[in-house]
Structures are given as C-alpha cells and as structure tokens.
C-alpha cells in the first residue's frame, strides 16, 4: 500500500480525494473526521482500509451524483426547481429544457451524436452477428453432447478428412462414450425430374438415424422408415426445397420422386433452419454404412456425427475413440496406416475458423467503441470548459451546484439517448448489410437468423447511456469545485490544469487504441492484395464455365457425349477453345490420391506423395489458358481405352520427382484402382491453384476422360474469341442438339469463381479497414478538438509573443510540437499493442510476418499524417491572431 499514513491511519490519498468532493469548510472537515473516528473504532488490518475506501466512494457518490440529481427543493434561485410541481412535471420540464439546450448548439450536438452513432452502430452490428452466430445455441437437442468424427493424416498435413464407413461402424461398436453414431455424405450432386425436366440439385446422403440423433424434427411426415437404405431408398426434403418446388404441399409425403433415374419415396420434410457443415442440400437420401462398404472395399467419404453418452466429456470420448482407432490401424494397416481419428464438438466443426475471425472483429469494434467514448468524453470536457463562465455567472446569481449538475446530466442523457437511438438504427442497416454479404463470403450458417433483438438492444442502450452519463459526470464533478469569482476573472477563460491533463490523456489513449486497429487493417489488406496478385495459373478473362451431369449413364456414353460436346462447341463461331474437367479450380478441392515413380518406388508406403487427380477432355488447357511447358496434350481418338495409358502432369509434379531431368516418357504408379498400370507422362503443364488462392502448389495429374471416365459430371470451360460473345446460348444449343435431357447448372464466369474464392479475405480486409478508418477519423477529430481548444486558451499568450516580435513559424512550431508530442506518446504505446494484435491476427493472414515493421511504420505514418492535418489548422489560426484581438480577448 502506497497511500497509507503510517500503519494505522486511513488511506491518505483516498481521504484527500474524498475531501475535495465534500462541502467546503467545517462541514466537509467534520464529515471526514466522523469517518476517521469510525475507522479508528474498527479492528486494525487491511479490512478496515478497504472498508474506508468503500465508504469514501459511497460518500463521494452521494455528494457528487445523487444529491445534485435530487436537488434541494429550494425555490426561486432560477425557477428550475419548479417549487410546487410534482415529480412527473418536474421530470418533463427537465427533459424539455434539456432538449431545448441541446438544440441550441447544433454543431456540438451533431459531432457528439455522430460519434456515438458511429461507435454504437458499428459495435451493435458486429455484436448482433456474433450474438446470432456464436452465442445462440445450435438448433439441435443438447448440442453440447454432439461431436463430429473426422480422420487426419498428420504426416501429410491432412485434417478434418472424411471417414470410412467400416471405421465408423467399428468406432460405434467399440467406443462406449458414443451413445449413437450416424454418418453423412456431403454435397452429392443428383439429377431430379421435376415437371418432366431433369434438374441437378445438391443432396446429402445420411444414415436413417441421423435426424433423430441430432434431435431435428420433421415439419411433415414421420421421417425415414426402419428399412430406409441405399437399396430401398427414401428421401427427406429440405424445407426451402419443399416450399420452392412443391409449394409447401404436405401431400407430397408418401409420393415418389425420380432421383438419379430411380423412383424414391418422400418420407418427410425436415423442419426449417437446419444446416449441417455449412452445406446446402435440397434433400437427404438414405444410406446405411454397412451397405456402402468397409476398410477393404471402399475409401473415405463420410463424416461421422455422434451423440455422447450423458456425462461424458468430449475429451473422454476423444481418448476412448483414439484407443479404438489405434486398433483399427493395426487391423487394416494398408488402409489406415498413418491415419488418426479426430473428435470435435459440433460447434467447432460448424463454425470452424469463422469463430476466431468474428472474435477479432468484435475486439476491433470494441476498440472503436472505446475510441468513440473517449471522443465523446473529450467533447463534453471541452464544452464544460467553454461553459465555465456561463456556469459561474449562474452560480453567482444563485443557481446551486445541484441545479447545474442536473442540467449537465439532462443534456448528456438527451444526447446519449439520441446517439443510442440513431446508433441502433444504423446497426439495423449495418447488420443487414453485413448479413447480405456474409453468407457467400463467410459462409455463416446462422446469420439469416440474426436481427437486432432484446439483448442486443439492451447492450446498445447500456453502452450509449453509460457513455453519456459517465462523461457528463466528470465535468459536473469539476464544476462543483470551481470558485465563481476566480472563473469570472481573467484566468477563467481557459481550462483548468486537470481538465487539460485529462483531455491530453484521452488523446493519447485514442491514438494508442487506433494503432493496433490500423496495423490490423493494413495487415489484412496487404494479405488480401497478395491474394489478388497471386497468380491462379489461369487466364480467366471471358471464360465461361458450367456444370453438366450424366449420372446413370455408362462411361462409354459419357465419354462420347463430352467429346462430341467439346468438339461441337469449339467448332461454333465465337468459341476459341472448349474443354471440360471433373473439378474446376477454386470451386472445390476435388479428388486426390497417392502416387510414385513407377520405376523408382519409395521404400515405405508412407513416403508416397499425394497428387490431385483430374480428368479432362476436349481442349481444356487452351480453354483455361494453362500453358503447355513440355510434350503434348491429350489427343481425341488417340488416347482412348485400350491405347497406352497416358497422363499430363503439372510443373510441381515434374520438379519434385525429376528435378532438372526431362519428365516426358517417365512413368507413374497411381493408387487409383490399380497400382500395376504404368501411366506414361506425355506432357507437362504449368501449375494451377485448386482449393484456395493461397495454398501451396502441389502435384496434379491429369487423365484423359476417354481413358478414365471416373466421374459422371464435368465442368465445361469455354474461351470466347471476342469479348462480346455470349457463350451461354451457344452452350445450351450445343447440349440440346446432342441430348436435351442433360441439365446445365452452376453457370459461372471463371472471373467470378476467382472473385468468390477471395471474397472472405476481402470481406475481412474491408471490414477491418472501415473500422480502422473510423478509428483514425475519430482520433483525428479528437486531436483537432483538443488542439484548437488549447490554442484558443493561449490566444493572449500567442498574441503577446507575436506583438513582441516572435515570428509565425515559431508559434506554428510550438503548437505543432504540442500536438505531435501527444500523438508520439500514443504511437509508442499503440505500437506495443499492435505487435500483440499482429500475433493474434496470424490465422487470418497470408505469408506475412505479423510483426512486420513496414506495416507498423506505415500505420504510424498514416496516423502521423492525420494528426498533422488535425494540428495544422489550429496552429495556422494561432499565427493569424492579431495582437489587438489577443489583448482584448485576454
């Protein structure tokens, strides 16, 4: 304890502080003495010192806040007490007077309310989204007991991978912590006949107990029957799909629908508001794990979802599952070697990285709110100083401190109420703006449910009223200590020392708080710019892509269709090149498998590298503008079933396997069906991104569709000859000519595919930049305010200096150095904070050192510029003060 007076006395500093808040003279002194006496009667020790501090706080509160609000009931000083009026009349009168006074000063009102609207609007918007996404529970029964099961291969840095049905069945049987376990296959494309036309829709394949496990209810129907399976398929419709395509007709349950050429019974409609794994589905098709295969017959393709037994923690379940899985690795070494099981709370799986991004935004917006508060405080303080004379005059005319304090409080409440109201309005608009952009960019599962509701409104109200009251009380407390005689004299023109210190401190705080925001904004923007600059390896301009699906056709039929289609397309006017690929870059990760040099296999299977597997047809490389580096591309009619198996690899494959050597003619063994076939490299193309713009380039193997028609769908890519060519009608006509029943879906220009791929970092960067910009603006305004005010206070001094010959530059320098000193201190403190923030931002950034000195310097420079601008105007004004005016003013 530093504030003690010897060992036994009351805390000295708080006693002095209290003394300044009590009435002057004997009254205050005797109250202090009473408190001392009681302090002396309490048992010695730290308890009584805390007691003293608490009592002192309460006394100060009573004298500083309660009493002024209450008034003394004395009539006639200036009529404000309203003598015989009852309570409600008094309150209405008080509010009315406050509103009138606020309206008398529109400039101040606009700046104060504007600042609050910015701060509250931004804070409430972000808080609303976060409230909806992070704080509301998922729409499942007891979501705390739900976990997801995925597999990981740490050696190859694979996590969150889908699992194998055999592995999941063995886990269900072996792990006691799982009460139930269900499986789901995401995003399966299906062809559905609606109104006698074929349409492609995304569907999920789920085990029959999936919905009961989640506790999801059916809106219509009873759900899957006991016998639902792949062999006896049933489907459940998603609520949106049911409304859009069946007009919400409840009688569809029990009818059948043609899905992938097979008649399937509709067993129910899932209740609305259901999303799993951020994945959209039109309907859910039944499968059972047993009939899809096991570790010896099939691969990994489903996610497991389990409900934990009551009282079991996620960690306990994880450990038990890992133990069982270790046994599965031993039992099926060929299939499971190197793999591990991951058990995660369902929240983590669904929200994923989004969660951290949102928390960072919330922190940023909290900082902005703090800056806004500091600014409002500054404004109130400045105004209180401007009005010292007014207050002093009124005090000497008989107004009591209570009356004046009530007046200040009334104005503060009116202002902050206005700010809060408009802020919530701004938040309402802001939330909709964010929500409208978020689903694509952030893929937030629950954002459509977010609205400005009860808790959010309460939050906004608390923030605005809290800010207003807090910052009205400070000047009100200061007012009580003023001596009207001194204030009315010459020295009363300027602010008191304490006020100046407080306001300078607030500026330092604002600058320090803005720095991390600015650094964060610059970092996210820079990493975003890197993403834009990242070369996807494709020439996207004018290229149109679309998806075609021939599910249910034989591979010969499919090959014939795709070859003829791409050839026909290429023959059309306006089409320079056309081709197709199974997984379009940036649209999905696609299939991948392990491979090795056929003629030099690695000793251990674990050392096999992994490559993306792509099937292409037509002139795909030309259509996408992917340059051929060596050898040749595929040849229609030559590279077919029965002819030597050939592949084209990307540069990364060639460089990793045969650095510095000629790759053409070399052979690969590929873990894709059989390892016996040697695939001969006939060509090498340049690298292309796959899943994301910022991923590391990895090996990619292209097969000719005519040799390996693995997948029924393809994405066609068409490059036009001129910019004005409308490619879609050409595609539609061509497809209709060959087979009018083939549906065309996902028609997207390749430029949009690339743009969507960077939508999320762009959103983060944009939001951060807006927040940081607002912060810098507010800090700049605050700085401007303080400086013009100190200049105004020194008008006389500056005038005298100029009168006795100081030149303008010197005065300019003096004011500038005062302002820049404040900014400098703020920048030093802020830089420290920025380094900490940078580390937190790591997860959002691409290949950038998070404590990058260039970024920090840029932020400091940016801030310096704003600060300089804010200082210059008042400084320049100071040099223009004619001595005559200065003297009069003084």
């Amino acid at each position, binding site marked *: 304890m530093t504030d003690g007076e010897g060992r036994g006395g009351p805390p000295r500093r708080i006693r002095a502080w209290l003394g300044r808040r009590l009435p002057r003279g*004997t009254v205050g002194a005797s*109250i202090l003495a*009473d408190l001392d006496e009681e302090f002396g009667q309490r048992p010695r020790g730290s308890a009584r010192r805390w007691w003293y501090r608490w009592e002192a706080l309460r006394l100060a509160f*009573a*004298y500083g806040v309660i009493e002024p609000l209450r008034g003394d009931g*004395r*009539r006639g000083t200036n009529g404000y007490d309203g003598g015989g009026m009852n309570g409600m009349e008094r309150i209405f009168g008080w509010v009315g007077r406050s509103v009138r006074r606020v309206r008398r000063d529109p400039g101040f009102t606009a700046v104060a309310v504007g600042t609050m609207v910015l701060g509250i609007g931004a804070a409430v918007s972000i808080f609303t989204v976060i409230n909806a996404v992070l704080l509301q529970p998922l729409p499942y029964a007891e979501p705390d007991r739900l976990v997801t099961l995925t597999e990981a291969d740490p050696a190859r840095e694979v996590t969150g991978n889908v699992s194998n049905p055999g592995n999941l069945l063995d886990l269900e049987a072996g792990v006691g912590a799982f009460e139930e376990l269900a499986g789901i296959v995401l995003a399966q494309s299906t062809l559905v006949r609606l109104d006698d036309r074929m349409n492609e829709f995304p569907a999920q394949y789920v085990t029959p107990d999936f919905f009961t496990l989640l506790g999801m209810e059916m809106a219509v129907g009873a759900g899957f029957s006991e016998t639902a399976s792949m062999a006896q398929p049933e489907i459940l419709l998603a609520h949106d799909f049911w409304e859009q395509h069946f007009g919400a007709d409840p009688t569809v349950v029990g009818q059948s629908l043609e899905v992938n050429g097979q008649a399937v019974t509709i067993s129910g409609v899932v209740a609305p508001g259901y999303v799993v794994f951020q994945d959209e589905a039109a309907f859910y098709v039944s499968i059972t794990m047993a009939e899809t295969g096991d570790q010896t017959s099939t691969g990994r393709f489903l996610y497991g979802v389990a409900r934990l037994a009551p009282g079991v923690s996620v960690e306990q379940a994880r450990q038990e599952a890992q133990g069982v899985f270790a046994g599965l690795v031993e039992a099926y070494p060929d299939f499971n070697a190197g793999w591990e099981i991951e058990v995660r709370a369902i929240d983590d799986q669904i929200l994923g990285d989004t969660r951290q991004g949102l928390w960072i935004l919330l922190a940023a917006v909290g900082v902005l709110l703090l800056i806004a508060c500091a600014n409002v405080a500054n404004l109130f303080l400045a105004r209180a100083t401007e009005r010292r004379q007014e207050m002093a005059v009124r005090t000497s005319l008989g107004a009591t401190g209570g009356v004046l304090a009530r007046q200040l409080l009334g104005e503060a409440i009116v202002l902050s109420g206005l700010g809060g109201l408009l802020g919530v309005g701004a938040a309402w608009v802001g939330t909709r703006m964010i929500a409208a952009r978020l689903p694509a960019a952030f893929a937030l599962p629950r954002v459509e449910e977010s609205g400005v509701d009860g808790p959010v409104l309460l939050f906004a109200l608390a923030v605005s009223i809290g800010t207003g009251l807090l910052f009205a009380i400070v000047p009100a407390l200061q007012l009580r200590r003023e001596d009207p005689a001194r204030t009315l004299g010459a020295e009363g023109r300027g602010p008191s020392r304490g006020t100046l210190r407080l306001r300078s401190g607030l500026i330092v705080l604002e600058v320090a708080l803005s720095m991390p925001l600015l650094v964060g904004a610059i970092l996210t923007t820079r990493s975003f710019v890197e993403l834009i600059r990242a070369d996807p390896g494709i020439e996207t301009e004018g290229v149109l892509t679309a998806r075609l699906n021939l599910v249910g056709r034989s591979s010969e039929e499919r090959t014939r269709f795709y070859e003829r289609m791409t050839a026909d397309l290429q023959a059309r006017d306006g089409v320079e090149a056309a081709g197709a690929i199974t997984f379009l870059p940036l649209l999905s990760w696609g299939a991948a498998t392990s491979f090795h040099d056929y003629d030099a296999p690695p000793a251990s299977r674990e050392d096999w590298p992994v490559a993306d597997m792509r099937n292409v047809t037509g002139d795909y490389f030309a259509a996408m503008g992917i340059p051929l580096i060596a050898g040749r591309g595929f040849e229609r009619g030559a590279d077919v079933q029965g002819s030597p198996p050939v592949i084209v690899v990307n540069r990364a494959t060639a460089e990793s396997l045969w650095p510095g050597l000629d790759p053409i003619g070399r052979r690969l063994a590929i873990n894709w069906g059989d390892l016996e076939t040697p695939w001969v490299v006939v060509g090498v193309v340049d690298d292309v991104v796959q899943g994301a713009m910022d991923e590391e380039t990895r090996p990619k193997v292209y097969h000719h569709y005519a040799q390996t028609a693995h997948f029924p769908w393809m994405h066609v890519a068409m490059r036009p000859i001129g910019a004005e060519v409308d490619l879609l009608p050409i595609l539609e006509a061509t497809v209709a000519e060959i087979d009018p029943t083939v549906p065309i879906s996902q028609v997207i220009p390749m430029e949009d595919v690339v743009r969507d791929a960077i939508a999320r970092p762009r959103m983060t960067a944009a939001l951060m930049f807006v927040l940081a910009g607002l912060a810098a603006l507010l800090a700049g305004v605050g700085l401007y305010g303080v400086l013009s005010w100190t200049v105004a206070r020194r008008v006389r001094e500056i005038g005298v200096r100029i009168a006795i010959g100081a030149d303008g530059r010197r005065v300019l320098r003096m004011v500038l150095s005062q302002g820049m000193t404040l900014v400098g201190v703020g920048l030093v403190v802020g830089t420290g904070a920025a380094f900490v923030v940078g580390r937190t931002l790591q997860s959002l950034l691409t290949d950038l050192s998070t404590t990058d000195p260039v970024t920090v310097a840029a932020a400091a420079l940016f801030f310096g510029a704003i600060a300089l601008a804010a200082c210059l105007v008042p400084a320049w004004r100071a040099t223009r003060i004619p001595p005559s005016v200065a003297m009069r003013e003084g």
Partner: protein
Amino acid sequence: MSPNAFLGEFEQMVLLAILQQSKAPYALEVRREIEASAGRTVSRGAFYTTLDRLERKGMLEWREDPTPPEGRRTGPLRRFSVTPAGRRALAQTRAALETLWRGLDLEAREG
C-alpha cells in the same frame, strides 16, 4: 421561511433522533440513535446530505464543539440541534399524518 414544511420520513427520523438526545449530539451519535431505534442501517451519504438539506431549510443548526470526545483525533466536531422551525415542521407533519390516519385500522385488516 419554510414553504416545504412537510418533512420526508428520513428527515423526520433525523430530527427526532436529535431531539431524543439530552445534549446536542454529533453526527455519529445521531446515526447510531436512528440505527438503534429504527433497526436499519443508514447510508452515510444519505445521512450527511440530509443533515445539509435540513440545515439549508433552517430546521436544524450546528455549532462547533472545541472539546472533542475521547477517541476523536482529527478534525472539527459539529453538534446538532433542532431549530424552532424544525420543531414546528415536525409538529405540522405529525398533525397532517394524524389527520390522514384518523379512522384507519390497517393492522387489523391486514390480518
């Protein structure tokens, strides 16, 4: 002199507690008296601000006691007494209340 002659509950308690003491009491004695007879703790802030208010209304006055009691080491000591205006206000308040109470028997009805 005193247009607001009607006293609040706590104001009455303070004035009555002063009158209860044989000799003009000081603040701590008044507070203790209220706490003892009313059986409730009294907020220090409310207590002192009420004393100030009653003084401003002219219902009580104080003088400084140059000989502080034992255990009092610091500061001045104020001894309070109720002014004639204060006594009048108490009497008026009581009379007004008694008028209002006339004929009422709340306890019996509460049962």
